[in-house]
């Protein structure tokens, strides 16, 4: 049994909230540079350059990449041999979000759904906990902006619609999203499970580093096919027209009910923000 004081969780979550918001991932920067080479639109190239410049300013001046510093989505994998001391784990995560958003000059975006009153500290965090073997704790913070989240959907397809139905739905979703979710986007796809599990898988898929292969060859091929088709739609960087509409398509899949074919599409903006720590 390993003891971890919850204060360590708070400190780590606070740090990850700040880092995720100001330090663009190396995989994203690399993708911007790579896509610039294949981008035919001069405006599209210019937008990719501006996004690289934006990332540099954010890093140098410790400013958030984007003013929408998101709802704090926190994935926490807890080793089953860990014992947390000194308080509630969930409260420690919320406190980490509270502190990170305050100290990092990040925008607080949580509000009451009806009155729209801003809650002022960006809590509650959206927490996904998993118990895993071992005595480590892995924490990933993914600040998720409203613009891209609003373009995301869950749909229960009829099983007869099959893989062609899945492809058609994803392409239509990206096309209808247009310039709203801040392209070039990362398309997170969840297939199977239940209604809520499909959505979770799609969100989890957005965390995979850009440029890595799907370990399942069938899904890898599907990701490549979808990326190619998405980049023929013409939306382009910033939605101003071009070849670079998506940086990547990531799919997570699991078995589903014989009566169902759940499909979730979680659109992630070009910043693809997330940071990870292991305790």
């Amino acid at each position: 049994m390993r003891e971890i004081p919850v204060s360590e969780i708070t400190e780590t979550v606070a740090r990850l909230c700040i880092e995720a918001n100001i330090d663009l991932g190396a995989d994203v920067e690399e993708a911007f540079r790579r896509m610039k080479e294949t981008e035919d639109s001069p405006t599209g190239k210019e937008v990719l350059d501006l996004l690289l410049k934006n990332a540099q300013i954010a890093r140098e001046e410790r400013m958030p990449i984007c003013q929408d510093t998101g709802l704090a989505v926190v994935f926490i994998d807890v080793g089953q041999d860990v014992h947390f001391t000194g308080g509630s784990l969930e409260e420690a995560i919320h406190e980490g979000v509270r502190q990170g958003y305050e100290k990092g000059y990040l925008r607080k975006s949580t509000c009451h759904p009806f009155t729209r009153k801003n809650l002022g500290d960006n809590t509650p965090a959206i927490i996904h906990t998993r118990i895993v073997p071992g005595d480590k704790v892995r924490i990933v913070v993914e600040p998720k902006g409203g613009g891209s989240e609003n373009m995301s959907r869950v749909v229960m397809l009829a099983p007869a619609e099959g893989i062609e139905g899945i492809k058609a739905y994803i392409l239509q979703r990206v096309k209808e999203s247009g310039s709203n979710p801040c392209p070039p986007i990362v398309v997170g796809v969840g297939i199977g499970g239940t209604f809520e599990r499909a959505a979770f898988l799609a969100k989890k898929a957005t965390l995979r580093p850009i440029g890595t292969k799907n370990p399942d060859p069938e899904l890898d091929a599907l990701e490549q096919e979808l990326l190619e088709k998405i980049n023929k739609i013409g939306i382009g960087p910033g939605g101003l027209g071009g070849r670079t509409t998506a940086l990547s398509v990531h799919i997570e899949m699991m078995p589903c009910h014989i009566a169902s074919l759940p499909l979730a599409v979680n659109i992630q903006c070009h910043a693809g923000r997330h940071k990870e720590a292991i305790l």
Partner: protein
Amino acid sequence: MSREIRLETPLTDADVIPLRIGDRVLLSGIIYTARDAAHKRLIDLMDNNQPLPFDIQGAVIYYVGPAPAPPGKPIGSAGPTTSYRMDPFAPRLMAAGLKGMIGKGNRSQEVIEAIQKHKAIYFGAIGGAGALIAKSIVSSEIIAYEDLGPEAIRRLEVRDLPLFVINDTVGGDLYQEGMKRYAQAP
């Protein structure tokens, strides 16, 4: 090739009518921030014949909820929010004199028609480039609805704010045209 045009607020018909989709504009002067909640309150004021918190004649509204200003800076990260959420309110404001809107993403048919009718303009700022855009903002002051936090109405002084013309007074739509130009058969 797209042109680069410098404009100063408040905007006039003479500023707005020659603009065409794809034009790059560097905007300077005073602009006002407003998002969903502030728009609703502005419309409520108009419904009750109350004065607006700023002069709407020739005004430009920026759809943004900035991040808090770090020490020594006038404002935090300040990129555009998605504009369609303001579509139900925008035509009323244009009828009252609003000349320019800055945001990101597609507008409704009603907004596109109102832009033509009232000789207004819709500018796109680059979504997710909030740190870069903040460099063009010289000063920021809350003038109304402080209780809305990031959604309060701010008076911003901007210098050479980099924008693209998305919807112009002759019905052009850069998002549609840009997509058509680069679309390939699947």
